[in-house]
């Protein structure tokens, strides 16, 4: 039941926030913040009795909930929480808190509706991380898009309309493919066993094989690839990120992209073990291409937000490579990188948003020398750029290293090429620092530097990324049983879903 509350709290928060905006614009902010704090309060006690990572035992669920939803189709309202989902939900809530804070000053129109959308989008993502009925999962998958669409379409920047539509078309379009696959999977199960069900655990038992299985898997794969996003279906991301308001970009980058990686881990791989092994070379290839493509394009951008967006594509390439190694270490890396990317990229978008608020531009050509005017902002910005570059000692590096380490054991070539991808990462990171913060200040400007609210926020994010970098073990411990859950216990598939060794 607690899991239902996890969904209800942000949803109700949004519902309350909407009308409260008419009373006073500060109310929605307070309500949203309080709701998220409450959510966090609900979440934290769930985590007790987790064992160290070395004691991997599958079947460790922190909480479950199951109720019939559409019995006519064998669809149930099934929620399950394990370490993996717990981590991602905590990330969601924490990033949600930051989004509320960052919107405190930025959003001044229709505040109530904005926060309603924000909260609903978060609720949708939490649902995605919880649902273990495939149809329910898809339901939440779609639900989280709509509020996001509004956030971009209403509070975005100049070209928000195009961006919002592009975002929606891409994700929804690919989502339909996934729906097809979900249905095909369920009906296949129906044919073989005589029961129509969308229950994850039941579907796990019947792995579709052959070309048809491969086709069904592709539906999931493509949908998640779009959302991840990976080359060549990434083109919605830069535009969307660029046009979204800061909170939108933050949520997009920090949470929504993670749903795709989560989906790959939770559904695309365990449900189709054989087909996933079959597609692994392609997936890794796409991941590697994304790493380079994102990095090279990031280097070429003049729009700082776009640069960060393309860098996300590059990072997600690592995630893609990591997932398709089927290696326990790499998967741990994927989890760490997801969280670290969520924090660092979120912080970067906050930085860019703050710059835009002050300079009214995101054009790198019009920046330069910001360090002179805004030392605090610039140093935080540079810090997070370095973090996202994969500086050892910070969270992203741990993730990237674990992924590379896992990948090297399975596919050394891919691992080496991916590692080389860290070079262009340095290139775009440094050019970003150079063009934005370093250099001669072009005009005599005077802007307020980060205030207390912003500094505190950035300090918290920075602390998180450092903590993740030097002591990731708690996260690894929490994630380990979750990752072990991805192994179907009674599958007869010849291929292991996860390689724990080497």
């Amino acid at each position, binding site marked *: 039941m607690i899991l239902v509350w996890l969904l209800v709290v942000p949803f109700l928060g949004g519902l309350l926030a909407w009308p409260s905006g008419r009373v006073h614009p500060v109310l929605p902010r307070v309500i949203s913040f309080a709701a998220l704090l409450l959510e966090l309060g609900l979440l934290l006690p769930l985590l007790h009795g987790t064992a160290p990572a070395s004691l991997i035992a599958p079947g460790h669920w922190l909480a479950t909930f199951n109720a019939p939803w559409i019995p006519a189709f064998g669809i149930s309202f099934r929620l399950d929480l394990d370490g993996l989902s717990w981590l991602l939900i905590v990330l969601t809530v924490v990033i949600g808190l930051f989004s509320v804070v960052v919107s405190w000053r930025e959003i001044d129109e229709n505040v109530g509706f904005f926060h309603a959308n924000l909260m609903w989008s978060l609720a949708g993502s939490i649902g995605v991380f919880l649902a273990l009925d495939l149809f329910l999962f898809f339901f939440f998958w779609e639900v989280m898009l709509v509020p996001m669409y509004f956030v971009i379409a209403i509070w975005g920047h100049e070209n928000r309309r195009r961006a919002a539509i592009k975002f929606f078309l891409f994700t929804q379009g690919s989502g339909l493919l996934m729906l097809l696959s979900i249905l095909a999977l369920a009906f296949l199960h129906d044919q073989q066993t005589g029961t129509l069900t969308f229950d994850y655990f039941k579907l796990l038992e019947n792995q579709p094989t052959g070309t048809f299985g491969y086709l069904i898997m592709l539906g999931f794969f493509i949908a998640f690839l779009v959302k991840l996003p990976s080359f060549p279906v990434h083109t919605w991301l830069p535009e969307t990120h660029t046009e979204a308001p800061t909170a939108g970009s933050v949520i997009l980058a920090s949470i929504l992209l993670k749903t795709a990686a989560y989906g790959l881990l939770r559904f695309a791989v365990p449900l189709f073990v054989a087909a996933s092994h079959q597609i692994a070379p392609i997936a890794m290839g796409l991941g590697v291409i994304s790493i380079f*493509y994102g990095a090279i394009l990031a280097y070429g951008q003049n729009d700082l937000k776009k640069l960060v967006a393309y860098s996300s594509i590059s990072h997600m390439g690592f995630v893609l490579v990591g997932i398709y190694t089927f290696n*326990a270490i790499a998967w741990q890396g994927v989890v760490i990188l997801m969280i670290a990317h969520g924090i660092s990229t979120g912080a970067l978008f906050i930085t860019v948003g703050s710059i835009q608020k002050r300079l009214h531009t995101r054009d790198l050509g019009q920046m330069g020398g910001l360090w002179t005017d805004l030392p605090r902002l610039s140093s935080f910005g540079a810090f997070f750029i370095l973090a996202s570059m994969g500086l050892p000692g910070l969270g992203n590096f741990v993730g990237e290293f674990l992924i590379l*380490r896992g990948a090297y054991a399975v596919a050394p070539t891919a*691992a080496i090429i991916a590692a080389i991808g860290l070079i262009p990462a340095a290139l775009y990171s440094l050019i970003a620092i150079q063009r934005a913060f370093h250099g001669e*200040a072009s005009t005599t400007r005077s802007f307020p530097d980060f205030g207390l609210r912003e500094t505190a926020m950035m300090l918290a994010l920075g602390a998180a990324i450092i903590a993740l970098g030097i002591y*990731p073990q708690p996260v690894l411990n929490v994630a380990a049983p979750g990752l072990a859950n991805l192994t179907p216990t009674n599958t007869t598939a010849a291929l292991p879903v996860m390689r724990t060794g080497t």
Partner: protein
Amino acid sequence: MNNLLWLVPTLPLLGALLLGLFGAVLPAWCTALIGTASVGIAAIIASSIGIHWYGNAPASHVFVQDLWSWIDLPHLSIGLSLYLDPVSLLMMLVITTVGFLIHLFSTEYMAGDEGYSRYFVYLNLFVAAMLLLVLASDLLVMFVGWEGVGVCSYLLVGFWFHKPANGYAARKSFVVTRIADIAMLVGILLLAVKLGTLSIQPMLARAVEVWPHGDVWPSLAAGLLLIGGLGKSAQVPFQTWLPDAMAGPTPVSALIHAATMVTAGVYLIVRTHVLFLLAPDVLMAISIGAAITLLLAALAALVQSDIKRVLAYSTISQIGYMFLAVGVGAWSAAMFHFLTHAVFKALLFLSAGAIAMRLHHEQNIFKMGGLRNKIPLAFWSFLIGSASLAALPVVSAGSFSKEMILGSVWFDPTIGPLLWGAGLLGALITATYISRVVFLVFFGPVRTEVSGRYGVRIAVPLIVLAAGSMLVGWLETPGFLGGNRMVTVLLRPAVGAVGIHPAMDILADASGYIAPLLGVAIAFTLYRSGYWQRAATAQPNALRRLMHSGFGFDAVYDVILVRPFMALVRGLRNDPVDLVITGISVLAIRLHRALRRSQVGQVRRYAGWVMVGSIATVAILVFA
């Protein structure tokens, strides 16, 4: 005593953290105090540990302090532990002591700079990272320090960020080293996968167990680690970043680009020398590469006009000597040269900085001159440093270490004499180019007005380092000067007794002493004849241009790496994949427009459509 080890890297880190958080609000003296004291206390602790070690070294000559488990996964366990053995002890001592002196120097040198606290944040952070690098017991932790120093170097090279050129130099230094670091990372991955652990000592033990001597895997692993080392230590072909890195403040060059960071490559190889011993090919490659590096860099130094660039090339060249030693397995010699080099090169840089301070930051040696009497402190310190660099016999520390290297090289069974010849030639050139600087800067007419004066915080480091430059050599002396073997003895538990040879041929020995003197003589002759001055003003010929540019590596890289990359960036900038998407939407709109034409609003045409539909339906149902 040893249990205080964790404080050594932590204190500078704490300093950096404090300054980072509150630097903006603290007064300058407070900043200086925190910055310097944190390193100073660390130096004191380090020295205490060193003294303590001298008498009461653990039986294994290893002290490990486990801090916490960094990553603990099945098949991958990385602990954050500090590993103290004679090698890392030596490194730690140099880093903290020289680091402290340079901090002290900086407090005055950087006074009044608007980024004063930022400077100390970076510098403290660097010291912490460097200490982590040398103290790490795990290769991956070492890599953390490794990259950390790289970033600090980047930040400090580009410290004066207003000038785009500085930014460029900073990025270049970082990117070039990162390219090498990626090779190292791949090497780490390889080791992790093949040997199952990254904890250096177990890893090395396992390597010996599973890999036969000369096997391909150790060669590959050692080669990849070596590339990392070459990058960090600015060896051919990665040396191009170091001369440009002189854009940073001079104390930074002294600390990072002379004394500590650039020798990390040497340290890495010494640390993992067991692995390298399994890969004789790699060792051979190291020596040959080192010989080439030291000669090329020395030649390049011969024609530079910027005093810091001369020193930069000389650093490359001197590290080449260390690599030369490493290549023949003379680990102690390499470490000893590291020690002396750290001291005299820091001294040289600080002196150069001290000079520039008084000359409105003039760095061109041809605009200096006659400073011998104007700023005697700088003159004497620079002179002592130069002597050490030139390896003037007996009076300089450099002489002892260089002699030790040449001696070890000579005995290398394969191409020893050849390498020895290169080393000797290098020594000659070294003496020549540094003497050239000394003559041009301190003798002859005064060309630039001298202003200001030195405070105690400038003088003390210079004096201490100058003393060191003369004296540290006596720790390890050749037989005829007493045969002290303090460094060798200290390091023996860690690196073994390899590379210690009883005596050399008299002739070879002597030529090692004569070459520097000869170099000084050549430089003096050319100075007296005015050749140096004329050559600087004359139209440079092709060879000279080549030498001046550091043998054209930059130009080659520009063509084969930078331009293709930039072309790629330009080509892809607008995301060609997006064009496909745009194409699809354009197609949809075209179709929309075409279909829209059917909606003409005329009822008889509509009737026509219905009729067409009827015909088609009947046709399909009846005739299909």
